[in-house]
């Protein structure tokens, strides 16, 4: 049984349909990439999973249907969604942001138990604990958003364009950490990206979305050689 299963998922914003039947699966311990152009429905797919957009069709996690659940109760099942724009609290300190990541599992005991592990991946956060999150650089904010998601020890991590607006070295660093989390802790990751190259290099399988539908799917290594994918998303 896959960890996450989407079966013919449709979603709409008011009268505008954004997903026209998306079907995908993600197995436990897998990194899956979701590629596509602007407006293809990548972000909406993540939102359909975390329950922050109106959707129909089957969404199940560990065999349980997410259909009627609220975003709060979906988060409680262990799905950590780092949304578009990172969803940090800029006026709160770095440490308070991390504490909010622990909220879902009982803030006090969780932050005490998980902070050392998470700070192991981002040692520089330690010295920045009392700084307001809004004063961090873009790359640091993205890492804080990732760290905050990890504090909850998620069963599934969903990242929405972690590379957006960041320098290549920082993007490489973020994906290095994601791969490390996957190989060392067996973390399952669903990552949405426009940067197809790094996403394919970092994932086992990938889906390509085109206007609200899955157009291509397969092993990431094969998609890197796929002519259509290469031309449209890798640019050669």
């Amino acid at each position, binding site marked *: 049984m896959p960890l996450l299963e989407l079966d013919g998922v449709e979603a709409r914003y008011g009268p505008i349909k954004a997903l026209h039947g998306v079907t995908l699966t993600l197995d436990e311990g897998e990194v899956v990439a979701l590629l596509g152009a602007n407006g293809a429905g990548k972000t909406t797919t993540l939102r359909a999973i975390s329950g*922050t957009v109106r959707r129909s069709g089957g969404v199940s996690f560990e065999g349980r249907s997410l259909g009627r659940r609220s975003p709060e109760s979906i*988060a409680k099942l262990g799905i950590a969604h780092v*949304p578009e724009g990172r*969803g940090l*609290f800029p006026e709160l300190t770095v440490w308070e942001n991390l504490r*909010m990541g622990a*909220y*879902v599992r009982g803030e006090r005991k969780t932050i005490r138990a998980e902070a050392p592990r998470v700070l192991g991946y981002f040692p520089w956060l330690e010295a920045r604990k009392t700084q307001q999150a809004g004063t961090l650089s873009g790359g640091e904010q993205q890492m804080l958003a990732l760290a905050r998601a990890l504090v909850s020890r998620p069963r599934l991590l969903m990242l929405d364009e972690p590379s957006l607006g960041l320098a290549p070295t920082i993007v490489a660093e973020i994906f290095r950490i994601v791969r490390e989390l996957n190989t060392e802790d067996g973390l399952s990751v669903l990552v949405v990206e426009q940067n197809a190259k790094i996403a394919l290099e970092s994932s086992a399988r990938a889906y390509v979305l085109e206007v609200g539908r899955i157009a291509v799917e397969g092993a990431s290594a094969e998609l890197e050689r796929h002519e259509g994918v290469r031309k449209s998303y890798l640019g050669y």
Partner: protein
Amino acid sequence: MTEFLQQIVSGLASGAIYASLALALVLIYRSTDVINFAQGEMATFTTYTAWSLMHHGLSYWPAFVLTLAIAFSGGVAVERVIIRPVERRPEIVIVIVTIGLLIAINAITGWIWGADVKAFDSPFPNDTWDVHGVTVSIQDVGTFGVCMLTVLLLWGFFRFTTVGLAMRAVAINPNASRLLAVRVGWMLALGWGLAAVLGAVAGMMAAPTVFLDPSMMLVILIYAFAAAVLGGIDSPIGAVVGGLALGVVINLLSRYVNFVGTELRLPTALAILLIVLIIRPQGLFGHKAVRRV
């Protein structure tokens, strides 16, 4: 000089009342993005509740505490029942609902307790202390102490508890909070409950001097508006500093500037409000609103 100090102390006492109510306004403004025009009437209603409790034989402090509990549940209920249905509507809709609430609560208060002015007990002796030649009214010191203690407890709640942290997070980014499993609706309701508690404290502290009548908080609410704007409408510290400063300044002006006297106190507050809005719209501690278009 001693009289000057005395005026400052009594200004701080009324300023503490403005500060409490201003803080209630700021709490709701930060989470709901609107000014709750019914904040004063909610406070009046709870003060009458305290009066009834004491009238039925409860002594002051038990009635005080019980009133705070009633105010809290009332605030939560108002948010859940009246504000929640319009929560996602444009701000102007919510503002109009709070104005409607002001009128409704005012009418209900008059209907239950009548329009005649009632005396309200003070927990503090009507006496003075002599501090190095400065005569200080115990009433003023007590009022100041109770209001500031409430503010301090609230600050501790937001600073040190998990729920307080979650409430601050919701005020900054409700959508991101939801993804972290925070029940945003209940956090908003909790904010209304706490604001109602602050209002109740302000009401019960003001009532012994202004006397109890259905419109007693109307004027205090205007001072609280001025205080909140002076401090910066989105700044809790600003509301407290603004309230205290306003209390002192108004008191000094009405004592030492002849034409202000007692009659022009309220217009003076409005003038301060206007000047702040023109010179420094974000107030002393507030954030400048930056809109990206």
